[in-house]
C-alpha cells in the first residue's frame, strides 16, 4: 500500500510538472489533486490533500439520508463553522475511490455545501474539515443503500 501511495504521489508530481510545462490538456491542471482522488481510504485521501491524521469532531456537520433509495444519487452536505477553516471535503468509505468532492472555503461563502454522490453500497460517509493550523476534523454517518424496483 505504501509503495502504491508513493507511486501515485510521484505520478501526481510528474503530472504537475507536465501541466506546468504546458504538456497536458488545460483540464488536467495541477490544481486537481489526482493522488487524493485515487486514495482508497479516508486517511490516505486526507494525507494526499496535505492534511494530518483526521480526528472525529462534533464541530463538523454531515447531512444525508439514513437510507438512500438509490445509490446513484445520494444527497449529502458538509458544514463547519470553526475559525480558520480552509477546506471541506466529502468522502464515501466503500467507494472504489473514497474522495468525492473538495470545496475551498473563502470568506465570501458560508462554510456549507451540498451536492449528490454515488454510492456503490451501504457505507460510512465522511465530511472532512481542514483547518489552517493543519488540523483535520471529520464527521461520519452510515448511509444505507437499498435495492429497489423489480431488480430487472
Amino acid at each position, binding site marked *: 500500500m505504501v509503495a502504491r501511495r508513493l507511486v501515485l504521489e510521484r505520478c501526481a508530481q510528474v503530472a504537475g510538472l507536465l501541466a506546468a510545462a504546458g504538456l497536458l490538456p488545460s483540464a488536467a491542471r495541477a490544481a486537481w489533486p489526482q493522488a487524493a482522488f485515487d486514495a482508497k481510504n479516508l486517511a490516505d485521501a486526507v494525507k494526499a490533500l496535505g492534511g494530518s491524521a483526521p480526528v472525529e469532531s462534533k464541530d463538523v456537520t454531515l447531512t444525508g439520508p439514513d437510507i438512500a433509495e438509490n445509490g446513484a*444519487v445520494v444527497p449529502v452536505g458538509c458544514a463547519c463553522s470553526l475559525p480558520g477553516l480552509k477546506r471541506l471535503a466529502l468522502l464515501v468509505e466503500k467507494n472504489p475511490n473514497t474522495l468525492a468532492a473538495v470545496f475551498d472555503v473563502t470568506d465570501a461563502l458560508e462554510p456549507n455545501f451540498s451536492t449528490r454522490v454515488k454510492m456503490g*453500497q*451501504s457505507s460510512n460517509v465522511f465530511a472532512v474539515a481542514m483547518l489552517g493550523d493543519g488540523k483535520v476534523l471529520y464527521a461520519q454517518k452510515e448511509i444505507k443503500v437499498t435495492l429497489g424496483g423489480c*431488480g430487472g
Partner: protein
Amino acid sequence: MKALWIGAAGLMGLALLPVQAQKSSADAIAEYRKMLEDGNPADLFEAKGEALWKQKRGPKNASLESCDLGKGPGVVKGAFVELPRHFVDTKKVQDLESRLVTCMSTLQGLNADEIAKTPFGRGEQENVTALATYVAAASRGLRFNLPQAHAEERRMYEIGKRVFYFRGGPYDFSCASCHGEDGKRIRLQDLPNLNKNPGDGIGFAAWPAYRVSNGQMWGMQLRLNDCYRQQRFPYPGFGSEATIAVSTYMGVNAKGAESIAPSIKR
C-alpha cells in the same frame, strides 16, 4: 464487481439491513425523496425542451411554436393535462409524445416514422423527451381533465381498460397485476392503483420524470415501454395504439389529480 460499481446498486441486494431499521425505513425513504426534490435535474431537460420548441429546425427550418397540442396552435400551458385526446387533422387519439412527433413532421419536415423507430434517448427521440418535459412543466400544478366527448376518445378508454387487464407472457402479468389494488408495493416502491385517481402527483400525474437510477429523463412512452419489459411482454412500438389506449385509460382515471410533472423518481 468494480466494473458494476454503479450498476450494481440497481441490480443486486446490496445490504441486509438490520431488523430494527424496518419501522423507520418508509420514513427514511420519504426523507431521502424529499431531499432530492429541490434540484431536480429534469429542469435541465425542461430548459432544453423550451429551446427546442422555439428553435427553427428541420428541412422546413421552422419552430414548433405553432404546434397544436389540443388547445389551439401554440398553446402550451394546460395542454398536457388534457392529453391523450382526439385530433381532427390526424383523425387519431394522440398522446403528448406522438403529437409532438406529428408537429415535428408537419411543421419542421422531420420524418415521423424515423423518429418512431429511433431508440429512446437517441437523436430526435432525445429531443421528443425534452420537448415533452417542457410541455408537461407548463401544466405543473394543473389538474388532469382529459376530454371524453369524442367517440374515439371513449373507444380508446375502453380499449385501454382492456389493455390494462390483458394478461400474457411467461409471468402471466398484466398492468393490473401490480397496479390494480391500493396499498401494494414492489420491494420498497409504492405501486399506485391506476384504476382510479391515485392522488395528486402520483402515477400518470408524475411523468415525464427524471430517473435517479440511470440519470435519464423518461416520458410516458418510455415509462410504459419499461413496464412492458418488466411485464415480460414483447416490445411496444413508440406511439402504438396499445400504449396510447392505456395512457388514455390512466389519464381519464386520473381526473382531478394535480400534475407535478416533470418529477424525480428512483
